[in-house]
Structures are given as C-alpha cells and as structure tokens.
C-alpha cells in the first residue's frame, strides 16, 4: 500500500526531475500523470498508484507549495468528474490507455451528450438513435444543454439501440469523436444573454464499435456511474460565513444605506439566517463524510441552495432600485467557465433560475428525498413494461 510518506517521496522526485519553473506546463502534467500522481486512487499506468483517494491531498499540497501548474480542473470538469470514472469502470484496456492521459492533462476536453429536447427529467426516454452498420454505429439525433461542446474533442454519449424494448433496456453508451463531420455544435443562448451551453446535432455520425462503453443495451447502467459522480461533484464545498450568494447583497446593504427599507431589512435578515443555516447543514454533511458516515442530506443541500440563490439574488435586484432596472451586459458570449456570483445582481438572478433545473430539477429531487430518505411510496409507473417506441411523446 502506498502511504503518505511514499507519495511525498514520489512527488519530490517528480519536482526534482521536472522543475516547474523550467518545465513546459503540458510536459509537467504528462510527467505527473506518468508518475502516478495525477489521481493517486487510479490504477498504476493510468495516472495513479492504487492509493487511497484521501491521500490525493498530500500530493496536491506538495505540488501547490512548489508552484507546480495544475490541470485547470474547472475547465475539464466533465472529463474528470464524469467521463473518467465511467471509462475506468467500463472501458476496455485500449480505451483507458488511449483516453485517460489526455483527458487528465486537459489536452482533450470532454463533453456530455445525454439530455435531449424530449428527454429532460425522463432522461431514459431519449430518442437519439444508433443503428449498427458493419463495424460501426450510425448515430442520428439531437442533444442539448451540452457545456464545452464547442471546445470538446470527445463526448460521452447515450443513444437508443433498441426501440422495441422498455426504455431503460434499449440504451447503449458510446464515446463520440466530436471532430466527426456529422457533429454540428450550435450555441444555445440562455436567459442571461450568453451561451454557456450548446445544442449538438448528430447526423449520420459513424462511431466504430470499438468506442462502445459497456455492453449493447447496458447503457443506462453505465450512465448511472456518470450521474452518481455528477452528484458527488455538486456537494461537498466548504464555505465561510457569507461565502455564497448572501455575500454580495450583504455588502451592498452595508455600503449603501440610502437603499435600505424596513421591508427589505426583514427579508434580508430572514434570508441571511437561512443562508447561514444552509451553510452549517453543508458543513455538517461534510463532517459526516469525513467521519465516514455519509448521510442522505446531500440531496437536500442542492434543493436548499437553489431556492436560496434565487431568493437572495431576487432580493438584491429589488434592493438596487433604479439600478435594478438595468442589466450589465446582454452581449452573446460563450464563456468557458460559469461564475454564479461574478457579475451583477441581475445576472445572478437570471442565472440562478437554472439552479433548480440543472443536475436534477427540484421537483425530481423532492421525489427522491420522499422515496429514498423518507421511504414513501414511489410514483405510479406506466412506462415500465412498455416498448420505448410505444411511449407517449
């Protein structure tokens, strides 16, 4: 078993052979991957050493102290958080060897082709078709809400390979080359004026069978690995008091006495308390995880933060009065990173509307809490034994 001392020794060796100050960023990242220090819990030869995941912090701390470059994880979050664990679990040896190194270094950006205009909360009803032709699959359909699609080299894709069986059974998981001529990416402009996301149109895209992930018809199960890792990535941050959306409005309140009214004061205090309590609940969840007693509170945290972000930013627009009638900039852009608090109140208000939709709507999350946490009966299902082609649409 690789322990902390061994990881420190290996990290020191990496830094000695490839001094960050004089080494090209990408060369350093490749060397780090090859030394097994990229994600230490991954297997040897795939950027890791089979060490406990909790020891990653040892490597990260040493490298940060030495001023080493990182792989800019926010830019490649879908690859790191969703594609990689799925490839690791279901990929062939060849797929892992070819794909994981450039995924981790960021040379190759990944995106996710899951949601469709007709398959949102009911993702398993997706209709993008993949038809076998010789050694290839020919894919036709439309995907939506795809961040980074315009930057991506690869996509994780789920598509329907058998319309004659119930919806969950007829899905297969693929790795799609975004440079294929049949792939068209169009920006999807949203209510903030910018386009964080894309629509992706797939027209006769040919995917070789060697880029299938998992068995034919087993795509829904494979996708669970991807989606479970998405939820892990959403929770678990540690915030200081006033660390979230409540920070900017509190600052405005302190700096602009002329904007204050009694009504706004009451509402601000109420939201300040709720934000502080949500922060404490998040901290409690984090302490439970550290203590090895994960609780079901995670599903609830996303619900709480979505509502609070919306109410707090809504209050801030109102607080600003005449300025609240203005907007910082409607220019259509395609930002690489999403910043929920970086812009003006109006932007925060509009962007936070997505918080109760993305990564599971609040309505679906309430069902999940009711059924999995409280054990209440599940929704009546009329789609379980019906072939996908016969579903209402």
């Amino acid at each position, binding site marked *: 078993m690789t322990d902390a001392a061994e990881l420190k020794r290996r990290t020191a060796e990496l830094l000695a052979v490839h001094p960050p100050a004089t080494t090209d960023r990408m060369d350093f990242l490749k060397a780090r991957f090859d030394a097994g220090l990229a994600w230490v819990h991954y297997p040897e030869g795939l950027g890791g050493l089979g060490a406990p995941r909790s020891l990653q912090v040892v490597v990260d701390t040493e490298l940060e102290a030495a001023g080493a470059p990182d792989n800019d994880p926010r830019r490649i979050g879908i690859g790191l958080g969703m594609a990689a664990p799925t490839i690791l679990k279901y990929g062939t040896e060849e797929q892992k060897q070819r794909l994981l190194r450039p995924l981790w270094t960021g040379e190759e950006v990944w995106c996710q082709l899951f949601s469709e205009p007709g398959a949102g909360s009911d993702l398993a009803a997706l209709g993008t078709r993949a038809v076998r032709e010789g050694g290839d699959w020919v894919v036709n359909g439309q995907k939506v809400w795809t961040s980074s699609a315009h930057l991506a080299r690869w996509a994780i894709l789920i598509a329907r390979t058998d319309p004659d069986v119930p919806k969950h059974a007829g899905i297969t998981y693929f790795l799609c080359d975004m440079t294929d001529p049949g792939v068209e990416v169009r920006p999807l402009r949203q209510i903030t004026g910018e386009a964080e996301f894309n629509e992706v149109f797939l027209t006769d895209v040919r995917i070789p069978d060697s880029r299938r992930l998992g068995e034919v018809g087993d795509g829904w199960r494979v996708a669970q690995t991807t989606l479970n890792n998405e939820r892990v990535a959403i929770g678990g941050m540690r915030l200081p008091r006033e660390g979230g959306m409540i920070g900017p409005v509190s600052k405005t309140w302190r700096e602009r006495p002329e904007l204050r009214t009694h009504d706004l004061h009451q509402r601000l205090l109420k939201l300040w308390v709720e934000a502080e*309590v949500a922060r404490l609940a998040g901290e409690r969840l984090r302490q439970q995880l550290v203590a090895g007693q994960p609780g079901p509170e995670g599903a*609830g945290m996303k619900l709480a933060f979505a509502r609070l972000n919306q109410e707090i930013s809504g209050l801030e627009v109102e607080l600003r009065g005449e300025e609240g009638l203005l907007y910082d900039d409607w220019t259509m852009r395609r930002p690489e990173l999403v910043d929920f608090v970086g812009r003006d109140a109006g932007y925060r208000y509009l962007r936070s509307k997505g918080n109760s939709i993305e990564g599971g709507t609040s309505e679906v999350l309430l*069902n999940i809490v*009711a059924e999995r946490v409280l054990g209440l*009966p599940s929704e009546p299902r009329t789609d379980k034994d019906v072939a996908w082609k016969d579903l209402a649409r």
Partner: protein
Amino acid sequence: MTDLLYSEEEEALRSAVRDLLADHCDAPGVIARTESDAPHDLAAWKALADGMGLAGLLVPEAQGGQGATHREVAVVLEELGRSVAPVPYLTSAVVATEALLACGTEDLLAELASGRRIGALAVALNIAAGGAYKVVRHENGSLHGELTGIADAAAADVLLVPADDGGLYAVDADAATVTPQVSLDLTRPLATVTLNGAPGRLLGDAEPAVRRALRAGAGLLASEQLGVAEWTLTETVRYLKERKQFNRPVGGFQALKHRLAQLWLEVVSLRAAARNAADALATGADVEVAVAVAQAYAAAVAVHAAEEAVQLHAGIGMTWEHPAHLYLKRAKADSIAYGTAGAHREALAELVDLPAP
C-alpha cells in the same frame, strides 16, 4: 471548527434517555396528566435527575455536578422534545442553573445539580436575553410584587427572583404564592408568582445572571424544537405510509410527498443550527451569533412540522386523543419562549452589521 456531529457518548446518552422516557412519558399518559392536578411528571424527573444524574450536566464536578457541556444537555433536550415530557429540565437544569453559575451560588447549585430541589428563574418565558424583564420590590429585607408567565414555577422548590435593587434573590417556593395560569402549552405550564414580604437571599447581580441564563435557554431550546420537529415528521411519515384513501397509501400522493420532503430538509437544517448553538455554548466561541441564528430559524421549523402533522393526520390529528396537539402547543409556545424569531433576527442585525434603515 465547530463540531456539528454527535459523539458515540452522546448517542449512548440519547438512547438511555429515550429508553427512560419510553417507560415514563407515553403519549396517553402525558395527555391524561395535563388534565390532572399534577401536570409535572415528578417520577420521570426523579429518574432523569436522580437516577441518571442529568440535572447536573452543566455543573462542574467540584460543585456537585457532572461536569459535562451544553452538547450533552442538547441531546437530552432533543429527547425531551420528542416526547413533550412535562419535566422542568430546561427551566431548572439549564436556565436556573446558568443563573446560579453566574452568581457562583455553590449550595443551591449542588442541590439543583442533584435534582433534590427544582429551581425556576422568575422571568417571564417570553423574554429574550438582553430584553427588559419585570422585577419585584425589595423593601426592608423582604420582597413584594407579582410576576407572571413563569414556566414550571408550580414544580419549583426555589425561585430566583430579580428585584428593583438590581439583585437576584433566592426565595423558597413555600414563602411565595404560586398560582397556575391556564397555559397554551399544557406540558410546560406557566404560573404567577406573588410575593407578599417573602424573605429573599441575595445571590448576586440580576442583569448578567439573567442574560446568561436566557441566552443558554434560547440556544438549547433549539435542540428541544429539533426534537419536537423530528417526532412530528417521523410520526406523520409513518402514518401516511399506513393510512389508505382512494385505494392507495396517502403518502404516495406527490403533493404530500413534496411537503414532507421540504419538511425533512428543514429538520436536517435545524439539526445543524441546533448543534452549532450547543457547540458554541460549550466552547464559548461565537455564542451570540450561533444562538441567534438557531433561534431565528428553529421556531418556524418546529411550528411548521407540528402544523403539518395536524393537517396531514387530518381528522384524527384534530382530536384531543391524538398527541399531535401536544406538539403543536409546545412548538407554538416555544416560538415565543426566550424571544421570538423576530427578536433574534433583530439581535442579529446588530451582531452581523446589517443595520435597520
């Protein structure tokens, strides 16, 4: 950083208290007692205080207590809230004890810690730390006046009475006239305390002692409110899985599932706020903000949970026979006790620099 979890010892304490209350405070018994001449369950109190030594948790061992902290007291209060137990724990083992700790009154502390005597701070239950409270007249060495809204005074052996000379006095309950008031919360009844020349023993300055007592009371009340909310949610969920209408369990209707899921989220949030307040009281760090945040949040959650319990139990929830009303009454009374949520929000406005216009 604040420890928001429960230790193994705290969990063991919880299950011991829960077992004891299961024996003493079952719902039909508590309902019957509310209509008797003895609204306080002194047998349960004796078992908690004498049997388990829980009345002395906040008192150092050198002064005859257990030398524990607010964290353990909070766990006891969660369980007392879960069973709306009619025992003077919050009033004697927390509020009166904190006042005596402020004054350094060793003999009375030891008596309260052992549970041999029950104490009550003679300040109306609705007063928040720092709020104005009524005092009695101190004249020629004896006390005169009437104080109302004194929780658990009917069970008390000794009353801690603030007087107009700024002192806090200990008065034997035998020397006072204690008249029960018809109270909204039948399990924590209020009384009027009338003093007609009662002798009092000066303990110390009233203002800091009362402030300290009410702050601890408010902070730990959040754990009782958590217990009330937790019981009502759990019991409502249990009932709705069982209750069938329209040929299916009522708990399967999405409109109700969503309400219960929202409530669950409020309860887990309250748990974090209540643990934070208990831990802050134990360590002394960030106490004022932690208590104000917990109290600004807890009341609405406990009341919401109890109101939902009545509504979702529907007909049976409206009866005297079903215990839901005990929880509703406790939750509503708790929302006023030691300061309303609004009073605590106002305090926060000062504490975190979000001033009123």
